[in-house]
């Protein structure tokens, strides 16, 4: 349970981090909060040659409102976002979600971008970014590109980030008037990874429902304002479409049941605010 050896460098700027990624490619890993990566290194599931530590980068610790989005820099911790005074009005979904994200001792150091870049299918922040139709800012030594969340998450722990790219920031679109938000999660213990998590954005025209923890990546559906049995039918179809599998924690049957039940609860929670 000790990491294999590696070289280590601290990068103050995105530019320096990108140059190092260009030079070392897949052999280098970005270390931000380390709350996923360090555990992976300790278990030797990854053995990079070089760690590029951005955790102390002031330039990457910015949290700003820009173009109708809250832009969260690569070194911003989950706790820093959670404690942002205006968060409840800017992104009302997130205060519902943070208590479910691991534990405060992990959120203190874990970064928002790190969770998104890691792309664990049961992690809450990728689910939120997708359901809020957010985007990611990817930067390499020669260019910067912006990808929508639905193009970014490509599978289990897999994203569209190229080996020489840094996930420089993520952008959460600010809440609009007449939007409501809902979140429900089932996990074995408080703070564990979600067996199933459902995030909902309701607006006057319809619903957007995201589910994490079931498929190999968070998935989202857009529906009109369904009610009653039409909502049950839609949730049932979504639950089956997620292709739930049996695993040692829970059966596929139970997972589908949880999607239907939590889905309904989260939709009702969101619609009550519209």
């Amino acid at each position: 349970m000790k990491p294999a050896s590696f070289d280590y460098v601290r990068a103050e700027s995105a530019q320096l981090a990108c140059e190092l990624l260009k030079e070392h490619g897949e052999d280098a890993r970005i270390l931000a909060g380390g709350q996923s990566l360090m555990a992976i290194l300790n278990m030797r599931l990854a053995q990079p040659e070089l760690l590029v530590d951005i955790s102390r980068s002031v330039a990457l610790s910015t949290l700003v409102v820009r173009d109708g989005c809250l832009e969260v820099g690569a070194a911003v911790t989950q706790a820093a976002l959670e404690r942002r005074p205006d968060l409840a009005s800017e992104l009302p979904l997130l205060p519902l979600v943070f208590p479910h994200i691991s534990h405060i001792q992990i959120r203190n150091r874990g970064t928002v971008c790190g969770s998104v870049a890691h792309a664990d299918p049961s992690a809450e922040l990728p689910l939120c970014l997708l359901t809020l139709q957010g985007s990611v800012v990817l930067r390499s030594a020669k260019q910067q590109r912006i990808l929508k969340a639905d193009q970014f998450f490509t599978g289990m722990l897999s994203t569209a980030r190229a080996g020489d790219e840094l996930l420089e920031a993520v952008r959460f679109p600010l809440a609009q008037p007449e939007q409501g938000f809902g979140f429900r999660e089932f996990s074995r213990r408080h703070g564990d990874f979600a067996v199933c998590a459902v995030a909902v954005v309701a607006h006057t025209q319809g619903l957007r429902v995201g589910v994490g923890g079931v498929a190999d990546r968070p998935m989202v559906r857009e529906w009109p304002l369904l009610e009653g049995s039409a909502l049950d039918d839609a949730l049932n179809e979504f639950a089956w479409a997620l292709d739930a599998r049996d695993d040692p924690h829970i059966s596929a049957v139970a997972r589908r049941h949880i999607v239907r039940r939590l889905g309904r609860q989260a939709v009702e929670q969101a619609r009550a605010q519209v």
Partner: protein
Amino acid sequence: MTSQILERSKRHSVTFELNGRLRQGYAPPRMLLTDYLRHELGLTGTHVGCEHGVCGACTVRLEGVACRACLTLAVQVDGLRVDTVEGLAGEGGVLSELQAAFKRHHALQCGFCTAGILMSSADWLARLREQGRQPSEQEVREMLSGHLCRCTGYTPIVKALMEVAHA
């Protein structure tokens, strides 16, 4: 801030403020802060449990903030402030308010998890005091969910924390 590559095969100087005193030593890049504290500096109050961030036994305060020493490299904390359980008691080993409450309520048995819980609680309670807020029992239990204790059943730990938080 250095942007020099620290080579894996060498030991690198690491200096930081530990419990209010500057301490210096050497660590290869792969050395975890837990091992650095215990083996390099000889401070064995910080315990090593799961070594992947789950159990909470190794929790220390980094720049005042509770986090896992097992998910932190020694070279990462160069120039920063680290507080461990050894720094809680005052002059002559007089227990802090929090430690005394743990003793009074029998909030530890084997003591393996205790150092981590004390460090998390010290950060958390300080933050609540800044806000002038007193936590509910549910909030105490949520904070404690980041720590595994297999002896006490948590009840006396919750009692000790509630007493300190509402003092």
